[in-house]
Structures are given as C-alpha cells and as structure tokens.
C-alpha cells in the first residue's frame, strides 16, 4: 500500500483551540478533554496538538520535534544537524505507554540554533535557513521527519484518536498560553504519524478540517518558492501559503486571510469603502493562485496568537466562544462547553471572515 505523501488522501476532521488573551498558561489537559465529545469526527487514524509558550526555558532555540524510523536514521540525521546547528539539548520526547497508541516511531526533540557561520556563508536569514533545512530533511532524508520547528512551541501528533494522543504525550505536563487540537478522519490507508495534524513550519501550525478543491493549483504555485509538498495534504499546503504570504511577502494576517478566502467579486464591487475595495481587488489580482476553494475550517497558530478562518462559502462548521481572558474555537459547541461550561458569546464566524486573537503585548 502506498504511504502518505505518495498518494493524496482526503480527510474529514475535528478541530479545537483555546487561547488566553492575558497570556495565562494552561495545562494541555484542557485541550485533550475538548476532543472527547467530538470523538465521532475522527476515526482513530490521526490526532494531534500544538502548544504555544510551552518551552519558556528554551525559548530562544528552535524546538525540532522529529520522527525517525529507527536509531540509525536518527544518528545520521544528527550528523547532518550538527553541521548546521548548535544543539543545546537532545532528548526523547516523554510518552506514556497506552494500548490505544502502538507502533510508535523514534520520537525525539532537539533545541537548536543555526550556526552563525553557516548563515553568513549562505547569506540567509535565520528563519529562511531553518525552513529550508526542514524542507530538505522532509523531502530527502528517508525515515526522518521534522514535525515541529518553531521557538517556544511544539507539536505532538500520532496515529490514534486525539484524546488518546494527548494522553500518550502526557500533555497535562505542559503549560501553554494557547493550544490547538485536531482529530483526523482520513478516507483510506492506515495513516502515518507525520500525516496527522497539526502541520507546522517554523512557529506556524495549522489544524484544518476540509478537503480543498484548489489543492493542486495552490501546490504548484507555492512550490515555485522553495516549498516542497511532500505529504500531499491540504494542511501542508495551507501552512506553506501562510508562511509565504506573511513571512516572505509581509502581508498581515487579515490580508493573508483575504487572499486565501477572498470575497467574491460581486461583494468587492458592492463595497462602499473604496480603500477596502481597492485592497481586495489588488490582493485577488496579485495572488490569484493562492485562493483556496472547497470546504475548510482552519486554526492557524503562531507565537502570540491564533487565527481561525472558514472557506468563503462556509462549507465546514466552526464556532467561537469566550469566557474571561480565554477564547475558544471548535468544530462543535460541545467541545467549547467541555473546556468551559459557562462559555459566553458563542457565534459562528461567516465564511471568509477571519477571527484573529492576539495575546496582549508582553504577555508571552
């Protein structure tokens, strides 16, 4: 049977997220529990989480989370990494043996910083270098896979139901100011650990529910800029698009949202705010190949915030609620009620309307 990456696998899904506006850190247990009432939205072939603010003691280093097929691959990869990075810590990611999660690969993490001499030689910005290295390992190093590469954040994912994955990774031992979660319902294949969500690059992480119809148009465009879509998943290409639009092109979050979930031309033409009209006309004309069509609800995590977004027809459910300093996002209200039974102001954002929540300045 073909592995993930050799074949394109559509998936249905459940997503959830929580963030503290004040930057208060919360245990990963809350997000694990949120996935329980949405059990039926997954089929046990993938679950995962991203936590932000979880590595304060190593916040200046890139936290590289990696899967290896075996010890030998890890050794080879470490040689490769040491030529490029200063590694301050290298360890097995702690896990708990549970019957629901089996066949785990070697799961490792490195806290590392690119060598200054290497950056100077290549004339590359630090982030660009890290992104390219991740891309290179994932595309070229058989049996090694980087599934998280940001600073002071980390992704935890596996083949299994999300609530079991949370238990497996001992998420209750981590504390973060924001968390995202994903349960996967792929239509075929036994699933592969790397194929679970969240999908990440640098500190971007994406959890996504949907199957985008624009996939190959998006993929073939974004691959012009050094990205390699090795997994053939929607989530992967959306992550790269966001990295390209925000980090490389320098768009704001809401401008990027207007590119990928652009308003219809009729809506743009009907706008009375001329500035807004010009902006949307410009963005659609400038980046036509990055429009995403077909159903999706996504939560984009980044250092200091979250953005939730639906496709422009709102073909996937997604609701938002709040309580005190915390904002909740989920495929179903039940997940929000699990996190906070007294959540208030529950509403369903319109298609293409981004919900951007940032931790207030200095709080993370």
């Amino acid at each position: 049977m073909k592995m993930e990456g050799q074949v394109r696998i559509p998936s249905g899904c459940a997503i959830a997220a929580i963030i503290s506006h004040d930057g208060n850190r919360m245990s990963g247990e809350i997000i694990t529990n949120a996935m329980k009432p949405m059990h039926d939205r997954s089929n046990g072939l993938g679950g995962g989480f991203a936590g932000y603010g979880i590595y304060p003691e190593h916040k200046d280093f890139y936290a590289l989370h990696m899967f290896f097929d075996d010890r030998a691959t890890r050794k080879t990869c470490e040689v490769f990494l040491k030529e490029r990075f200063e590694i301050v810590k290298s360890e097995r990611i702690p896990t708990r043996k549970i019957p629901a999660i089996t066949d785990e690969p070697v799961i490792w993490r490195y806290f590392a910083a690119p060598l200054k001499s290497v950056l100077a030689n290549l004339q590359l910005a630090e982030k660009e270098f890290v992104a390219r290295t991740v891309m290179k390992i994932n595309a070229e190093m058989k049996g090694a896979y980087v599934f998280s590469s940001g600073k002071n954040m980390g992704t935890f994912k596996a083949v299994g139901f999300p609530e079991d994955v949370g238990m497996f990774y001992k998420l209750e031992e981590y504390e973060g100011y924001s968390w995202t979660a994903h349960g996967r319902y792929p239509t075929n294949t036994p699933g592969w650990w790397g194929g679970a969500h969240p999908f990440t690059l640098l500190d971007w992480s994406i959890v996504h529910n949907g199957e985008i119809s624009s996939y190959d148009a998006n993929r073939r465009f974004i691959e012009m800029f050094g990205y390699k879509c090795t997994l053939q998943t929607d989530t992967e290409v959306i992550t790269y698009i966001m990295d390209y639009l925000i980090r490389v092109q320098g768009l704001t979050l809401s401008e990027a949202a207007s590119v990928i979930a652009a308003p219809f031309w009729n809506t743009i033409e009907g706008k009375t705010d001329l500035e807004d009209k010009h902006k949307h006309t410009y963005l659609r004309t400038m980046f036509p190949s990055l429009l995403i069509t077909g159903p999706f609800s996504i939560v984009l995590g980044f250092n200091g915030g979250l953005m939730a977004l639906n496709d422009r027809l709102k073909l996937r459910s997604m609701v938002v609620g709040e309580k005190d300093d915390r904002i909740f996002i989920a495929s179903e209200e039940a997940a929000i009620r699990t996190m906070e039974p007294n959540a208030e102001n529950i509403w369903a954002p319109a298609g293409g309307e981004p919900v951007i929540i940032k931790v207030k300045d200095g709080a993370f």
Partner: protein
Amino acid sequence: MSVEFIYPEFEVIRNTDRCIACRVCERQCANEVHSFRKEDGIMEADETKCVNCQRCVSLCPKRALKIIKSDCTFRENANWQNDTIKEIYKQANSGGVLLSSMGSPKPLPVYWEKILINASQVTNPPIDPLREPMETRVFLGKKPKKIQRDENGKLKYELPPQIELSMPIMFSAMSYGSISYNAHASLARAANKLGIFYNTGEGGLHEDFYCYGDNTIVQVASGRFGVYEEYLRAGAAIEIKMGQGAKPGIGGHLPGAKIVGDVSRTRMIPQGSDAISPAPHHDIYSIEDLCQLVSSLKEATEYKKPVIVKIAAVHNIAAIASGIARSGADIIAIDGFRGGTGAAPTRIRDNVGIPVELALAAVDSRLREEGIRNYVSLVVGGSIRSASDVVKAIALGADACYIATAALLALGCHLCRTCQSGKCNWGIATQRPELVERLAPDTGSKRLINLMNAWRHEIKELMGGMGINSIESLCGNRLMLRGIGMTDKELEILGISHAGA
C-alpha cells in the same frame, strides 16, 4: 481534361420532385455551381466547382438539395490514399505549392479527448452554480514578485497593466482582409457585450472599430500592416505575432485581389498590391531583439498596456517561452498545430509544430520549475472546440483560451476550407460586397454571445462539480485531470496521472 482531370470531390443531389426552380441556389453560390436551363426550366449543377460549403443546402426553401461525398474513387490503396494521389496530380498540373485553409483535417492526435475531468463525491461537496456564486473572471498580466508598502505601511495597490476578462476566452487573431468587415464588426460587438476581447490580427484596425478599443487586442506582425501610434493606443493590449500554429516558421500572403478599398486603407498599403508578411520580423532575429520590441511598444503606450507575445507551438517551446517570460512581455499566447488559418501551405499546416496540449503542459511546468510562472499569463489556442476543452486547458495551466474557428462556426462558417478562394458564401472570408452583406453583424454578434454564454454555463457546471467556485483555483490544478489511453511519456509531459491512479 484527360490526364489533368480530377473527378469532383462532391456530388450535388437535387430532388427534382421538390425543386421549384426558384434559383435561390444559383444566386447564393459564388462558385457558380448551380445554373438554370431556360429551355426546359430545370436547375443544373456543375459539381467541379462545388466546395461543400452547404450554403445552397441551408437556403433551399424546399430542402431539395444535399451535397454528398463522391464515391468515384481510385483503386483502394492503404499507402497511396485518394487525397495523396490527387495532390500529386494537382502539383503535376500546376507545379505549385499546395494551399489549404482552416485547421488541418488530418487525424492528428487530439489530447483533449484523452483527458477526463474530476468531480466531487462525499469528501467534499460539489457546488451548484444555480445556487452559489461561480466566478469566471480572469486578469491577464504580469504579477509582481513582491508586494510594496508606502512609508506608513499601507499596501501600494499599483500593478503592472492587466486586462480583465469576464470569462477565460478571447476571440483569436483574424485580420481584416482575411475576414470581412461584417465578421470583424460581429466579433468586436460581441467581445464588447461579453466583457472579453477580440484580436485585430495583422491587418490593422478599421476606423469604424476604434470605439471598441477597450475590448480589442491590436496585433503587430512581421508585415507591420496598419501599425502606427494611434493604432497601438487604441487597443487594450498589444500582441506581437511571432508565429501561428497552422504555419509555424512562415509568414503570410494576402493576394492583391483582396487589398481593395477599406482593406487597403486599413493596412496602409496601395490597392491591389500583395500584402506579404515576412517569415521573421526583420527587427527580431533573436530573443534580445524581441525584448527591445516589447520595450518599444511599451514606451509608445506609456507602459499602460500589457504586451502579448504569440508563438506557434514548436519543439523547443518551453525554453522559448521561458525566454519570452523574461523579456518583459506580460502574456504569452501559444498556438497549437491544429490551429486555423486563412491560407497556409498544406505541407506546413499538416506537418509542422506540436499539439497545444503538450506545448501548454511543457511551458507551464517549465515556468514553474524556474519560479517565473507569475511573470506572465498563458493563453492557448489552436484548437479549442468546446467548454470542456477550455476547462482542461485551464487545469493544465492556461489562464485563458483563444478561439477562432469556433467563433467563425458561430458566424455561419461550415468549414469548407476554401477561404483562400475569397468566395466565402457565408460572408466571412471574403471582400466581395455582395457576399459580405450576407453576414449581418446584429445576427453574428448575437450568435457569438449565445455561444459564449452557453460555454460559460458549461464551464460553471464543470467547475461546480469539482467543488471549485472560482476559475483561478482551476488554473494549473492538474490533479483535476486524468488521462485515458496514453503512454507513460505522454502522461509525464502532461503532468497528469492515468485514470484509476
């Protein structure tokens, strides 16, 4: 007669029980096939002159006429087929190069027919175009590498010049001279009403059509007929014609007989002189020369209009297109070897060039490999015959399609393939006033609009089935295509998987 005689290709069958000798066929046939025998009041036919344009058949009030292929053939021979033998006789008779019109009728491979389109089932929803918005608008032009912001951090909205199409189809270049004033009028009016573009071809722009400038692409070809400052400024975009799919590597020849009146004035050449377009542009012998012509045309129009470079699909098309993408051109138009023509040497039309499907796939892939696909838009033609051809072309990587033969069919062309005679009974490929007036621009433009509206509906339905509600998400979306009955090499070039895989 004798050795020079070639038996007529068609037979005119007249049902004498129905014929009332009204002589409509006689009046309608510029080839003078039909005649009236006064002695006994019977209609006769000289089928040696018949081109099977179906004009008499269409206009006979009693449906008394039909034209059939003659069954008088040479002795069967798989190697020396009828057409081949006749061509040899013709050349032995005349000593000349064989001329043909319209796209090649040979059974050349049509890859569109080996490509199948996807549809959504279960995992994502198809979209109903009757209930949900379905967008077909396209902007053609160069997209900058990077956004710009002003000192306050506000986005700068300036873009290089773009042309906006309400749907991804344009009427391809056909010169005034090769087709009639009324044909041009029909195309111009329809393009205007549809929010798309028509193309002047290389014969200049008739003064009456400057009012349609916003929907006009003005062409600059190697003969430079009718090219002057006002002409360049009149159009919405300028097309440099480097080649044509039906006759790559050669120029054009409009006989002096057609350079009459307005055609002569519009082309800015004397009446009765042959209009000869050289094979190359004599100021373009290399890619850097093209770059200079692009710059000159942009200077002349203050960088307000996109420049299209049209090339015939030839073997090294990917590398050529890559060069053009870096030459400053905004749009590349690729014309495939099944494309039409008003007249071309038969041997060239049937043997030179490559299919547009392969050319398009190769160019789109190459430009992406080089990271420059957004430097240019891609337009393809030759031959796009239906809405599904359009959808397949866009999914392979085109931004828009050019159609010409399909547009002429809408105007009444019956593909008799004798445009070079100048005696088009449908008033299209002719300059004879009494024939031209048969094509009424009101009717012609209406029929073009009907055709495009019909295709637009079909495109939307195909898109909706795939769960795509905007044409830009279809562009280059090759995962939506599968091949059937193709070799691995063909699939590799097209960049698609085989059906079932």
